[in-house]
């Protein structure tokens, strides 16, 4: 049977401050007359603006030709009658059809332009997503999984659940969960096409089926409300400048009674002996470096409050320390080595740090590596885990 709840309508709103008309949802009317209110709002909005008028269709998932015909007519009329304005339509490649469909308007009138907003999703994070960082991400997951496989059940993950892993990166966590917990469905979403391509390749090479790798923006997902028993988001809130937007989305797609699970770092708490002070200094600087790029690598202990503010209940938080004593000191050292190149090399250089700073910055990473490989050394990387239940 087709459930009544599948029926979806659309929302239209106008934000005067941004001169933006936002259309969202499903817009498939039978007759043009059903579009009258929407077209009227479009026309009154256009009459109230100067300069650029934005039409945001990033979350307009469905649109039939009846609706498009009405919208197109009103937009073309405005473009012709108002020489003083420009119309920018903001689409999303996640939708699939919208850039091409609205692009036909540009051919009719070049004053109407189409911008695909996610063509450069989160450019500030590009250096974290380039091919060279993939081995590091794999090593990180390998090291954290030793802990998380035991921690996940304490936060409510059980076999047979429906699960979403948001900001899945290269998808290796989803693969490990699929093997260990046999979820009935697992969706893994990320905004990096190169990471997803890698994830699909790995899943194919290892003949792991059943993981749905989806491209999308974690802050504005097109996944529907209340679908998943368990929603994870690992090491991601800390690298977005508006983590609350993502938390709200995690909660939205979680079923009532299901749990949202997040992990984050407090990078300044990385430690090692011998040469503790040098290591401590470098990781404090690393925290500041990320802050300069609008990323909060101190987010770990803040996870509790973030979930609390999102209205979750039965909150649980704990931390674990990935160390060189977990059984693979070389993997730990390899990870720090990659961090050194990525952060003291790429990011620090991008910030414009001088050679003396970079040298000292690098020394802390090298001391951390030395501590990891020292016969009597101890090196650690702490991670915070928090989860909460969505009220029924």
């Amino acid at each position, binding site marked *: 049977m*087709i459930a009544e709840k599948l*029926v*979806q309508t659309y929302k239209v709103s106008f934000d005067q401050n941004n001169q933006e008309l936002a259309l969202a949802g499903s817009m*498939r009317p039978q007759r*043009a007359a059903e579009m009258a209110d929407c077209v009227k709002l479009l026309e009154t909005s256009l009459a109230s603006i100067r300069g650029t008028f934005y039409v945001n269709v990033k979350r307009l998932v*469905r649109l*039939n*030709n009846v609706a498009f*015909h009405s919208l197109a007519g009103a937009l073309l009329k405005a473009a012709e009658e108002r020489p003083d304005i420009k119309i920018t339509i903001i689409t999303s490649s996640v939708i*699939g059809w919208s850039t091409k469909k609205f692009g036909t308007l540009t051919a009719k009138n070049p004053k109407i332009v189409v911008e695909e907003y996610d063509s450069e999703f989160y450019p500030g994070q590009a250096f974290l997503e380039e091919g060279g960082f993939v081995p590091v991400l794999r090593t990180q997951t390998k090291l954290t999984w030793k802990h998380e496989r035991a921690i996940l059940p304490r936060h409510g993950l059980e076999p047979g659940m429906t699960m979403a892993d948001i900001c899945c990166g290269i998808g290796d966590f989803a693969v490990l969960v699929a093997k260990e917990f046999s979820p009935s469905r697992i969706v893994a979403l990320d905004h990096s096409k190169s990471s997803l391509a890698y994830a699909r390749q790995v899943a194919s090479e290892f003949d792991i089926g059943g993981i749905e790798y989806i491209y999308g923006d974690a802050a504005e997902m097109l996944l529907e409300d209340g679908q998943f028993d368990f929603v994870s988001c690992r090491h991601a809130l800390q690298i977005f400048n508006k983590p609350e937007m993502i938390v709200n989305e995690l909660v939205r797609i979680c079923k009532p009674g299901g749990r949202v699970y997040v992990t984050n770092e407090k990078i300044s708490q990385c430690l090692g002996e011998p040469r503790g002070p040098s290591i401590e200094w470098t990781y404090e600087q690393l925290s500041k470096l990320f802050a300069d790029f609008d990323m909060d690598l101190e987010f770990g202990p803040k996870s509790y409050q973030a979930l609390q503010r999102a209205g979750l209940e039965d909150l649980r938080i704990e931390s674990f320390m990935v160390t060189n004593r977990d059984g693979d000191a070389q993997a730990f050292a390899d990870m720090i080595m990659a961090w050194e190149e990525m952060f003291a090399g790429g990011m620090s250089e991008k910030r414009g740090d001088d050679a003396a700073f970079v040298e000292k910055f690098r020394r802390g990473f090298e001391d951390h590596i030395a501590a990891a490989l020292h016969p009597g050394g101890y090196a650690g990387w702490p991670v915070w885990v928090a989860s909460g239940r969505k009220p029924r």
Partner: protein
Amino acid sequence: MDLGAGQTEAGEFTLLLEFDMDMAGFTSNWSYCDRLSTYFARMISHNRSDSLLYSNLFSSALNELLETVYRLHAPTGSFVCSVSRNGAKDRIALTIPVDTETEGFYRDAVVVLNGGDVSPRYHNALFSDGPLQPNIGLLELAVDYAACFSIEPADGNAIRLIAELTLEASAP
């Protein structure tokens, strides 16, 4: 209405999902086009490389076909919609009760769709004044989704309109 899924072979295609419904029932509610296209899209997209993107595209394409059938059909008879798959290609087969006039519409439309580039026709239809042309959905599938159309007789006073789509290439 019956909804069924199975492994029946349809040539090289494997049947994924099929529904049949009395035409009077289907045309009793416009929202059935949206609901059915969305339901079908979700059900058949899970094992595509990006299930959400594929579902969006498939739903858009199928909805245009269903809206066309909603507007153009004989008043009685059974309407059948099936989706079959052969690798990256999905085949939508619509068995539509027709009279002389509606059969002529579908046959003429397929001749046009297979007669070369229909982009100019589609773009003219998108921005025409007055009511929408009834074949706009079919034109859209041919232009934006590179659908290949064919038509064949079906039992009783019906035709089977077939659209084959390869949407995976559109995935990021």
